[in-house]
């Protein structure tokens, strides 16, 4: 269930370009999907502490692939007919609006892959667990932190009218829709990296000489695993 994506050309405006733009390598696998602006329907998940064991149960973690996790997304909860993702009114949703402390627990990046594979492009919550947030930013799934009252208002709006469209605008760092305009914070560097769809390995390898230089300063007594 992929929704139409309202994605502008990456790096459309010059002021968003990082000075190193032209020399950055693209990640070989998989190219991170750039995120600039996305407009879509949203599904309300009125639960706090949504842990990654719920997002993708551990049985799914035995797979060695990086794709195909959408079927496992919230699989225990989806077994309940009344679960919000089973409501056909939200079948087209591409934005998840969840309660506080989303993505707690295990470091499994499979949680992010499952959300993306299912069709989500952004998650909105009053607070994210740190590892989940890092994993999401590394894959181009935008974690948008908004005040609890704003999240609540968005949930209420999409409960009242599931066809309401929400826009997550990374360039402007704001969420718009349902009569709301809500700014969110994201540092300039991370925003630039997301808008360009750049992978961190390529960015870091530009500094390989610094890494080699650092290694020369490490004390000899540090342990080796060999």
């Amino acid at each position: 269930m992929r929704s139409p994506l309202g994605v502008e050309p990456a790096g459309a405006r010059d002021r968003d370009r990082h000075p190193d733009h032209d020399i950055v390598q693209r990640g070989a696998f998989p190219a991170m999907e750039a995120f600039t602006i996305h407009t879509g329907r949203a599904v309300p998940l009125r639960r706090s502490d949504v842990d990654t064991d719920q997002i993708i149960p551990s049985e799914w973690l035995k797979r060695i692939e990086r794709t195909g996790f959408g079927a496992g997304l919230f699989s225990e909860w989806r077994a309940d007919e009344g679960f919000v993702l089973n409501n056909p009114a939200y079948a087209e949703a591409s934005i998840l609006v969840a309660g506080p402390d989303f993505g707690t627990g295990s470091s499994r990046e499979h949680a992010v892959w499952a959300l993306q594979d299912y069709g989500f492009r952004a998650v909105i919550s009053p607070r994210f667990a740190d590892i989940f947030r890092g994993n999401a930013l590394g894959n181009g799934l935008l974690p948008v932190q908004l005040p609890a009252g704003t999240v609540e208002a968005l949930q209420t709006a999409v409960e009242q009218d599931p066809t309401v469209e929400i826009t997550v605008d990374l360039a402007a760092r704001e969420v718009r829709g349902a009569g709301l305009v809500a700014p969110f914070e994201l540092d300039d560097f991370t925003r630039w990296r997301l808008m360009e769809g750049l992978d961190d390995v390529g960015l870091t390898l530009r500094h390989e000489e610094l890494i080699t230089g650092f290694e020369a300063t490490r004390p000899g007594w540090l342990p080796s695993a060999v």
Partner: protein
Amino acid sequence: MGRTLAEKVWDAHVVRRADGEPDLLYIDLHLVHEVTSPQAFEALRLAGRPVRRPDLTLATEDHNVPTTNTLAPIADPISAAQVEALRKNCAEFGVRLYPMNDPGQGIVHVVGPQLGLSQPGMTIVCGDSHTSTHGAFGALAFGIGTSQVEHVLATQTLPQRRPKTMAVTVDGDLPAGVTAKDLILAIIARIGTGGGAGHVIEYRGAAVRGLSMEGRMTVCNMSIEAGARAGMIAPDDTTFEYLAGRAHAATGPDWDEAVAYWRTLASDDDAVFDREVVIDAASLTPYVTWGTNPGQAAPLDSLIPTPGDYADPAARASAERALTYMGLTAGTPLSEVTVDTVFIGSCTNGRLSDLRAAADVLRGRRVADGVRALVVPGSMQVKAEAEAEGLDEVFRAAGAEWRSAGCSMCLGMNPDTLRPGERSASTSNRNFEGRQGPGGRTHLVSPAVAAATAVTGQLTAPAQL
């Protein structure tokens, strides 16, 4: 202004710092297991990149491995394929691996410390949230996702935003019968599952200083359950005594140089933490969880809470949902909750001192009829040490199952799982819905409480036996 332990370790590992960008941190040790690494190795392969520092990388098989019949092939073909993928990847990229049945195999967070690889002042990462365990040594140790695993394999570094710091000071001494597990459950209940978000917690105070290294590992292990990026304890003589003589620890003049450096790591007296929490050790009693996140914990001698008592609507809704899932009634004494299964093991409580604590309770007693009790050492070395002391005989004589090393019933990735509706007292770290198997109900407890619960069939502290 002085610096905290976390800030000192951080500053010593910055490869590159640039305005507005995350710091690029050097990683001293990268631990790897079969679950979160296959996609990372595959990415390296596709990009034609090597593992930059195989000598700073160590792999073990733990999440998928069965804990019985370990000489037979793994029955589940998907688990078997994942373990096989790790073996192939380690061979191809030159990474040292401790496979099933190897004397060095075990849970990744038990193996690193027992080898003496986890040392003060180091940066340690692993594709596993309980990497915070190694912070017990005064290392900055944290869990990462698979893309970051790939990043560390390729570059031995990680771009990271500098975290905030939080001091959790536990004054006084823990009362008799109160363990490291009770302490960390009480801390998480106090600050909440998101209370440590964005922070590195430093555990301080007399009660923390008084813990053994294994107790400190239990505390730091569950830092992630409070949402913290990492948990740390300043290294001291307890740390150095634990490390001295271990396989990968320095010797001779190198050891002296290392210890001299390690002694400089403690937070300065004038260091300022972004947040401070103080806990009175004397007020603590054995703790258990009643809900479906580790923050939903209470003293074992208290009543299951009433959701309506929570002022915060999200906490109230969460409590209501948790009680429904757990099949519990508000107001019931926790000590009246009956269990079907007792699990003693995991990276939280699968070390020798944990097994000793459980054996001390079970010695001369019997597991209650109808209760299944699994005792799973955290590593093959722990297993061997426990057997040398005869602990396996104590467990068997009591009617418990003595298993081989692995993550076992901590998570539903291997044959050791709860059946739907089944209830456990578990020394592991997560009581999430379905964590130990779909529909399973988990109460987190200390090894001593787990053992006493096995004897009575209901949540019990050893003092009540």
